[in-house]
């Protein structure tokens, strides 16, 4: 598309309409420049954003629809960066939820100018990033994994996890241990013992 060639590789394009918007003060780690674009912000080759303050939206409900129409279906990901700056936001948000489906925009809520600026930064920063950090769990050290695994059942904490492995030596032994043995470890009350033993012995799936 024509726009993608114009957008610089590293800067956010800002429509002159947004001049004076305090959220621009929140954009610090990424460079931005004014440019004549139909959207408020262009955050990547296929990503743009419209900014909407709910306060304004309540006074001029038609405004945002006009702006969305002006985009004329361009951009793959169209963010509607919505600032929640009123108390009774329920009705507006309900309406916007419906709009987002009908007009193919993705709503992102923010509660301060600073946060809004940060979202702009994030979209630009992650433009080419692979979603690895949300796709699978991150590898961590053995001790972290150990604690993470043991503390999944409710109310079992890190101290308990440590007490458990230090008494049994390995996770396998701890899993095989009976409730009486575990109950003798300091800190492991009946409820915790019950939860742990249930968690490791209950079947994963439904049996017919």
């Amino acid at each position, binding site marked *: 598309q024509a726009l993608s060639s114009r957008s610089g590789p590293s800067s956010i394009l800002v429509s002159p309409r947004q001049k004076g918007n305090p959220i621009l003060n*929140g954009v610090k*780690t990424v460079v931005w420049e004014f440019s004549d674009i139909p959207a408020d912000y262009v955050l990547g080759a*296929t990503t743009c954003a419209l900014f909407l303050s709910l306060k304004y939206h309540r006074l001029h409900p038609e405004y945002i629809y006009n702006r969305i129409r002006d985009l004329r279906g361009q951009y793959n*990901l169209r*963010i509607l960066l919505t600032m*929640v700056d009123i108390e009774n936001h329920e009705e507006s*948000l*309900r309406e916007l939820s*419906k709009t987002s*489906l009908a007009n193919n925009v*993705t*709503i*992102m809520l923010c509660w301060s100018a*600073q*946060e809004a600026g940060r979202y702009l*930064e*994030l*979209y630009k*920063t*992650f433009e080419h*990033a692979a*979603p690895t*950090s*949300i*796709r*699978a*769990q991150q590898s961590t*050290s*053995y001790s972290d*994994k*150990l604690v993470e695994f043991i503390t999944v*059942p*409710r109310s079992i*904490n890190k*101290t308990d996890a*440590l*007490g458990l492995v*230090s008494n*049994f*030596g*390995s*996770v396998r032994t701890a*899993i095989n241990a*009976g*409730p009486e*043995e575990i*109950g*003798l470890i*300091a*800190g492991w*009350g009946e409820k915790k013992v019950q939860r742990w033993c249930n*968690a*490791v*012995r*209950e*079947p*994963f*799936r*439904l*049996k017919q």
Partner: protein
Amino acid sequence: MPSDERAPVKLSLPLEFQQDIFKELREEDELIIIARGLGLLRIVTNLLHSYDAAGNNLILLVGADERENVWIGEALAEHAAVSMSPKARGLSLVNTDLMSVGTREKMYVQGGIFSITSRILIVDFLSGLLNPETVTGVVVLHAEKVVATSLEAFILRIYRQKNKSGFLKAFSDSPEPFTTGFAPLTNMMKNLFLQKPALYPRFHVTVAKSLEGRKKAEVIELEVPMTEAMRDIQNAVLECVEASISELRKSNTGIEMEDWTLDSALHRNFDTTIRRQLDPVWHRTSFKTRQIVRDLSLLRTILHALLAYDAVNFNKYLDTVLAASQPPPGSTKQNQSPWLFLDAADTIFTTAKRRVYEGKISNTDLINNPNVVPDSLRPVLEEFPKWTQLAEILQEIERDSYLNPAPQDSSNGSILIMCGDQGTCSQLREYLQTMYVRLGGEEDEDDFQEPSASFMMRRRLRSYLAWKRDFSKVSSVLFSENEKAINSSTDQRIQNRKANKPPPNKRRRVRGGGTAVSGPSRTDTGAVRTAGDRDAHIASLMAELKPTEIESMQKTEIGLDPLENMEDYYELFDMNDLVIIHPYEGDMDEHVLEETKPRYVIMYEPDAAFIRRIEVYRSSHTDRTVKVFFMYYGGSVEEQRYLSTVRREKDAFTRLIRERGNMALTINPTNTDPQESFLRTINTRIAGGGRLAATAQPPRVVVDVREFRSSLPSLLHGQSIIVVPCMLTVGDYILTPQICIERKSVRDLIGSFANGRLYNQVEAMMEHYKSPMLLIEFDQNKSFTLEPFSDLSVSSGAASVVPDLQSKIVMLTLAFPRLKIIWSSSPYQTAEIFSELKKNADEPDPLKAVQLGLDPDMQGDEIRSFNQVTQDMLRALPGMNEKAVMTLILEVENLQELANLEEREICGLIGTDIGRRVYRFFNRSVWEDVAVPMLG
């Protein structure tokens, strides 16, 4: 048939107030709030039996927990036998998802009394498996939990909408939850669809008359002073609590925090109270705040451990606490728990150590000069003052029963000792068995032996030292950064020694009265395992503690009661010489009293409900005498807590009585005809001449059965939307043939980002639906923002290093541009948004929704698991991805089986790469080197 209604039933309600309640309940529907310990379950079982005996009914019991189910089941069977009622069918349990739909349907048709897990009951109601109109009546236990958005309230609403004639009775023995909020009792009555509350506090006239009219139980109160060290530790812990609270105050300005005082810290659950107060803003709190809240829980446990664990085990627990509080490598002081820097924290650790031994045992010594043996090590082994007191009481009882042998009554002379938990039970058991064991040499000098715990304590110290040695290894293995591949799987299952000879010099046989005291036992050092030696100075202390001749003779298993040999010994127990040690277990304690018929009861820890149980027991059996000894540490947290529970219960009842007096009479509150309100909603929506066709089909939403944990299905139902429960593979809610929604609370969102689950869920939705949506649902009353309290500018520079929630949402939308996000400030709001989205759209097809996303090779129900916890644990395993999780769920029975698989078996299932990591995770030993058994 009327004759059935009045079938003769034998009741077991000896006291007047119990009979009153029973009669009232037979006549009308009520909410009964009764003081703890007055025998609520007994009333419930009698009531259920009276219906059971009549036969030909379908009665649902809602809200009963596992223990109550067992109790009620047994009691109903007993009643049926006593009344010889041929029609009684007893209790049927529907409490697991592993029971198939067909079985359930058959059971419901047969009728009887059913205790059903709420989540299953609501699904069965909605799916039509169980028609509410066929239900004879509903009995609700734990009525205090029936808040407006609860599943139980949802169940009762459906029941009352469809069935106006069936009975409905609710019970609670916890008045406190009924007193918070505005007109709480009235609201609860509304949720319960009941109009008449009946209150039975301990000070109720009939209750008082029933319990005090006849012979009262003799109670001797004993205030035991704490040792100085115990008091020091308690004060130090409280100081840490205070410091943590003020730290919280500092970092969370703008939050209601007036009642965060040390005083409230003495309550049982001050950490949960604070947690609840912070809950509305939890997702915005800083790492530090969360850590302090965690610390508070920890400090509360320490406070409890101080009075429950003996000096050695307490110190051991503190060692674990200290190791677990080690900051992760490379972190700064700011990441440490603030209380650890206080002088008071130092007091806790040093005093606790001084109660065990004196002299230095620090690791720095070891590193500097590993060959020098410190010569000043000396075991101290402070004993609990209550132990001596307990021994004295037993002596007194001995004398007493010698002087007044066998009074004319039907108690059988046994002694019942009640304490807080199983751990204390086994501690006391061991103490009583060994308190007259001498360390050798001196015992023939004087005939009169002072009871002492030194034998037990020395043994515990030995096992502690053995543990300590390995524990330093564990810490270094876990918390040192060198991640060596240690593959020495040293699975030393404990040799189960079966030495069941009774100890030679025991005066009374001590037997555990608990239900779960079987299974493998420990080596006679009390340690689960032993290991090779390393530290010279521990060796010296060990030498000091070398078992004396007499000690090594005592090889019997202590603390555990192996049930395998029960048959051989059971008949030998003479009820008259029995000391029974039992933990408090709520209503179950009534059984203990009834079964043991004790002449003496020693309450090792205070428990208000148990005192009432004794009163009830005493008044129910006029021919039995009971003497009660009641122990508590003076000036301790234990005493404070006891007093405050008594006070709070009384206050709660007083307020309830007042509110009942002012309660407005609601006439016929059940006019929520679904038909009518449905038409009403349609009418308002068609303003301006919309499509009348909407009336042709009521709006419908397909909901995944696991979603019934949340309140949203109930609220959707409240919006007059038909909720169709189904097993969904893709999405949680299907609104229209196009719209599929995955619901995440803020906490779920963080969790499912972390383990990659959300990515996969969204991916699946993208594949099957035109309009996939992610619903981010905030809690009612929770602040509706993701913004953290801390300054954003600090973290924004390092955003790419540690991705926070916001950046993860950004990544998700970048990865799936077609995904839309619904931001909802509460489940109520969500329900509104859903009906908005559904307007003028086609209704979803449940059958199609169920089939989407299913692997064609697998049958639908098979892969669906309800067990979120075990699945989350699978996901926490190293290297796991969604495919591997699925494979394991299908191929392996449970975690235990998985943990015991051979390496090649795991690799065969999920591939060499992940398989090896998972195998290593389970089998890696934290003790590093192969242990050598020692300390015979």
